[in-house]
């Protein structure tokens, strides 16, 4: 289908983007990779009055190592994250996840900031951001990931707020993202990320609720010395996932437990 009409403006700096967002009002939206927004506009599920194209803001496209932090610019494409030697060395789990977002064409366009701001329940980066206590930096403030994802497609961002960076901690110990789906390029039916850092485990779950979930009970059980198999039984504690076309709530909870076990075992190099 053909999207509804809208005004279009290119921003050459973050300040200009923010000004343009103010000028066009609440129904204006940022256009980054377009790979969530344009499909929604084609189905007319989204009809923004104006799009502010941030693709020309070069300083938003960066990957920087900063001590024990890894700073990923909002406009950094999935393909760049996946291929980055810095990401592979400092946070290889992020490179692994980036290589499994969509397909080649999606990865050539889609951006870090777009996935974070869009906050799809099946988005892959939000899980990592939450479980690693990443910070979402905007033109106005820094928001810890745990305060950022509010609900389905709903974040703490204000109408004229632009995500500029996501700041992850460095973590290069054992890690794995297990993404369960029917076809290669699909979104996760359920995804589980496991990262060993500072002597403990961080476990995050994708698409088992309106926002990403950190599996605290699993992390605690592992801390107390439980084996992966026992600890993983806690992965569905407190979950109340919505059923969808591909999976019932019970099946998603089952997947959360099974995939958590697999993620931890595979991170440790077992099968």
């Amino acid at each position, binding site marked *: 289908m*053909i999207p509804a009409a809208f*005004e279009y403006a290119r921003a050459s700096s973050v300040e200009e983007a923010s000004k343009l967002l103010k000028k066009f009002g609440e129904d204006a939206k940022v256009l980054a990779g377009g790979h969530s927004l344009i499909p929604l506009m084609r189905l007319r599920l989204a009809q923004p009055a104006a799009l502010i*194209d941030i693709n020309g803001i070069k300083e938003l496209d960066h990957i920087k190592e900063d001590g024990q932090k890894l700073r990923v610019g909002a406009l950094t494409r999935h393909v760049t994250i996946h291929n980055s030697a810095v990401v592979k060395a400092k946070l290889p789990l992020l490179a692994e996840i980036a290589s499994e977002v969509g397909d080649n064409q999606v990865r*050539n*366009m889609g951006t870090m900031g777009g996935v974070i701001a869009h906050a799809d329940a099946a988005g892959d980066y939000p899980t990592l951001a939450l479980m690693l206590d990443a910070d979402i930096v905007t033109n106005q403030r820094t928001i810890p990931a745990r305060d950022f994802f509010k609900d389905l497609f709903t974040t703490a961002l204000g109408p004229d707020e632009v995500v500029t960076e996501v700041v992850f901690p460095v973590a290069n110990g054992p890690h794995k993202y297990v993404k369960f789906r029917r076809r290669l390029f699909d979104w996760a039916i359920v995804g589980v990320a496991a990262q060993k850092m500072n002597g403990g485990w961080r476990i995050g779950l994708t698409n088992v609720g309106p926002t990403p979930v950190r599996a605290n009970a699993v992390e605690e059980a592992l801390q107390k010395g439980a084996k992966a198999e026992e600890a993983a039984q806690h992965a569905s504690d407190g979950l109340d996932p919505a059923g969808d076309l591909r999976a019932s709530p019970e099946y998603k909870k089952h997947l959360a437990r099974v995939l958590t076990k697999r993620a931890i075992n595979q991170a440790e190099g077992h099968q």
Partner: protein
Amino acid sequence: MKHKVATTVNGRQHEHEVEPRLLLVHYLRDNLGLTGTHIGCDTSQCGACTILVDGKAVKSCTMFAVQAEGRSLVTIEGMAKGGELHPIQQAFWDEHGLQCGYCTPGFIMAAAYLLEQNPNPTEDEIRKGLEGNLCRCTGYVNIVKAVQSAAKTMSATPAKKATVTAGGN
């Protein structure tokens, strides 16, 4: 309000005034008459509309024409040179990599990007590299064979490869 969009498509320059909501694929098909780029879905999943934008495979249904300002594009029409099929096109022909042919232009452009990134892909790498393209007819086996065969021809004659990203006739 209309916006100017100036692009180079298959080596030729074009300039038009377009509405922002015009999708790049509609611009190619309706404004430029390049109907080789197909539209197979409304959900950015099928890859039939794949073209190269500055050398990168992109689904042209998921980009607005205004975003192509200043870019260099290659569509399926830019692949054959002087009446001679591009090695990837020839390989799809030889290996029977198509049945109805609807998905073929998208597969060929996605394969061109894949082989540019990885001139000697394994079967798994080919399947992963083409995951953004759907075919309802072939079952993919002959498509994979075609890409393997094209990879062989192209590494034997590197000059053929260079023409892909440059576009032009």
